[in-house]
């Protein structure tokens, strides 16, 4: 349960921070979530990965659905393997997820630093 909360926290924090800050704020969001709700390095990493992946993947799909443009398909032609628009959205999610995963792991490691002082 707590893990799902952590995933949601990553998404909410990342979304909110991105309103004011550049893309890399998702890294800070994932790390903060691990600091606040973490406990297990694997779970935290997975939460960071999934949180940012879902936010970016569905964010991209939503824009795609709303827009009248085929730009995502065109961008696909520039990427290796020439994916379609859905593929570009998936790659978008993966890049976000990669950053989310390592950032969350980083946050978890930081959390453990403070834990180590406790008895």
């Amino acid at each position, binding site marked *: 349960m707590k893990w799902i909360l952590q995933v949601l926290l990553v998404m909410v924090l990342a979304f909110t921070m991105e309103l004011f800050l*550049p*893309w890399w704020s998702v890294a800070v969001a994932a790390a903060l979530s691990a600091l606040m709700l973490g406990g297990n390095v694997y779970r935290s990493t997975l939460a960071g990965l999934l949180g940012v992946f879902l936010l*970016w993947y569905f964010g991209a799909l939503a*824009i795609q659905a709303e827009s*009248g*443009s085929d730009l995502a398909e065109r961008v696909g*032609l520039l990427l290796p393997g020439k994916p379609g628009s859905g593929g570009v959205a998936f790659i*978008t999610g993966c890049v*976000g997820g990669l950053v989310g995963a390592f*950032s969350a792991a980083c946050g978890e490691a930081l959390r453990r630093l403070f834990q180590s002082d406790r008895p």
Partner: protein
Amino acid sequence: MRFVRFIALFLFTTGLVWLLDGIRHPSVPLAAGRFLDPFHGFWQNMEKDSLSMPGKLKLDGLKGKVTVHYDERRVPHIFAENEHDLYLAQGFVTAHDRLWQMEFQTHAASGRLSEIISDPRVLNMDRLRRRTGMVKAAETALEAVQQQPEYLKVLDAYTHGVNAYIQSLKFKHLPIEYKLLDYRPEPWTNLKTCLLLKMMAWDLTGGSDDFEQTHFREVYGAEEYNRLFAPIMDSVPPIVPRGTAFAINPVVPPAPSRYDPSGVYSHLKYPKPAPETGSNNWAVSGSKTASGFPILANDPHLTLRLPSLWYEIQLSTPEHSVYGVSLPGSPCVVIGFNRNVAWGVTNASRDVLDWYNIQFTDSKRTEYRHGGQNKPVQRRIETIGLRGGGSFMDTVLYTHHGPVVFEEKFSDLDSIGPLNVAMRWAGADSSMEIRTLYLLNKAQNHSDYRNALTSFFCPGQNFIFISKGGDVAITQNGRFPNKWKGQGEFVLDGSDPMHDWQGYIPMEHNPHVLNPSQGFIFSSNQVVTDSAYPYDVSGNYDYTRCRRIHQALQSMQKITVEDMQRLQNDNFNVKAAEFLPMMLAQLDAKQLNNKEKEWSLRLGAWNHLCDPELEEPALYDFWEKNLMAAIWEDDSKVAGKVLDYPNAYLTLHAALRKGPLVYVDDLQTEITETLGQVLTATFKSAVRDMDDFSKNQDGLWPTWQNVNNVRVMHLSRQMAFSYDKIKTGGNAAVVNATRQNNGASWRMVVELGEKPNAWGVYPGGQSGNPGSVYYANGIQPWAEGKYFRLHFLEFGKPAIDAIRFTQILEGNNP
């Protein structure tokens, strides 16, 4: 231990973010995180309807209120209370739609592309730009404008508007190309506007075949050169109707008694003048139209690009209103109309760029010989910034002729020996083209038009004109060097003062026609006058479109706007109609197999239309290309240098009408080929080319649209943002001169009655954003020969149906 793990993870993660946040090395061509982020990256460039803009905006610097109506094709109609606000708003609105293109084109013009693209070929392009003195030319133009506050004000306001937009830009709204190439826009300047206009001048007059012509003359002699290359004067209708007298007292400079240009220039990579593609304009007076009002048509042909070269706009103050196409990066309308006049342009195609051999007196190249004296060399150091840091330094040597473009430090072969060639270009001289545009926008009658033209020096253009009062006029306008016969067709001697340009032909001597008795005037890059005009008019001319247009306009009566639209899209190939029967008659039937015979019959029955779904135009095109190669390529090979040869029309004319043409013989064989043999052999290979085309293109049928492959390429040449295989007709040497990536960059037809009745289309769209529905919405209608009504809105009148969105711009101090 935990601490070490944290530090390791922290360093790795920040490293990862750093890598994904920018293009850190040419081998990683994408800032993936920054670019893909749905909330700031390219996804934000995907527009829903391209009309989601604020209804009201504060715009620093505006004196009053500006209303911008966007119509159904996103053409802005700007209504300002004064001129300052008008041009400021033009800058703002244009930058909103075209910022990346504006900056990229001026980066290209000033030789600065290496700052954003890391590629040795790009560096070479940048060096050539610097060495042809483009920045210096723009600086000279700006100095001239700065002397005239009236026009400087216009540039200042426009620049202010562009910068107001740049300052308001957040990363997420940056054009996608900035995000893709990972760089940011810099402030706009008046110099950039001048650079853009100079680049346009260079595009139209910067090509040269002087080197290859020098080779030809050296190998075959002056007489042979004149015989083959001299413009045909007797069968083409010139711009000024035949038989017009010129009441001018010319002063033509004396020619030197000897002029024997020579040298080997084959290794110099310099662009040729545009071949047989070109522009048309014509005007018919009320006596020939159904409505009784004059009609003007113009279709300037250029390399087709996305974002489009043109940006449609209406510019209005309470005093005047003009509609037409503008160049993104420059204030005013370039081709257009207002309530009282309409105007358009084609390229004059005259030779205003020459080359001089320079003899330096010492190895340090501080002086050069001229008129028996040593003259000092000026040096200008060009610093080309490189992507990823560092810079490339180039020293450009200047003589009084111009920059020494090619010398030992800038040529592809070192083994040739000393070779120093300076360029003399009319575009390098001080000029005030912006004044002409500004005054044409406000012109009310013929004398306003004539007055406006007096400051347009380069590129030389055929300015066509009609007025509501019923005048039709055309002027071949520009500053053309006053040359002795043959001067500058070959490389000139930079040490002989007689080879210098001896000033310009007085502009009042430029050919001009007003209301000719025939009731129409036109130009299609053909020669300007018959031989009665006393000045040298060497250049690269059209021989085909002019005949078709002349014949059409002469025979037409009760002309309508639709007639003029049809003529702009006319696909009749005059060249094929003239020469094909003669070519087919010389085929040796004994050597043709059944398939080839069948093809020859089909060609004989062809109506000479270059329509997209036909195969005959493709076969004819292959045949002509093979024939040209068979006639000329062996001559270059045997001579050991690249020879210029007459264009296809002149060659066919010489071989089939004048004949026999000795160059038909293949010098690489023992026997002497006849024209019939060469025609037969090249016809057979053309039929093979048709088969090969299908084989090489996955069975794609060799119809004309497939072989011609009309395309509109994005400025970055990325296929992803480009359109190709466009279904449309036309060809070089056809009125609809649509050839591969060349074609009508804007088609406009205007009838000046009570209200202007105007129609237009261009192969692109108003938005420069590939993520907008207005990016390329004009391509399909353009390809089909369709037109949009151009809405000429009245000041203060209520909005019409066509308006989709209205934006109010206001200054900060009410």
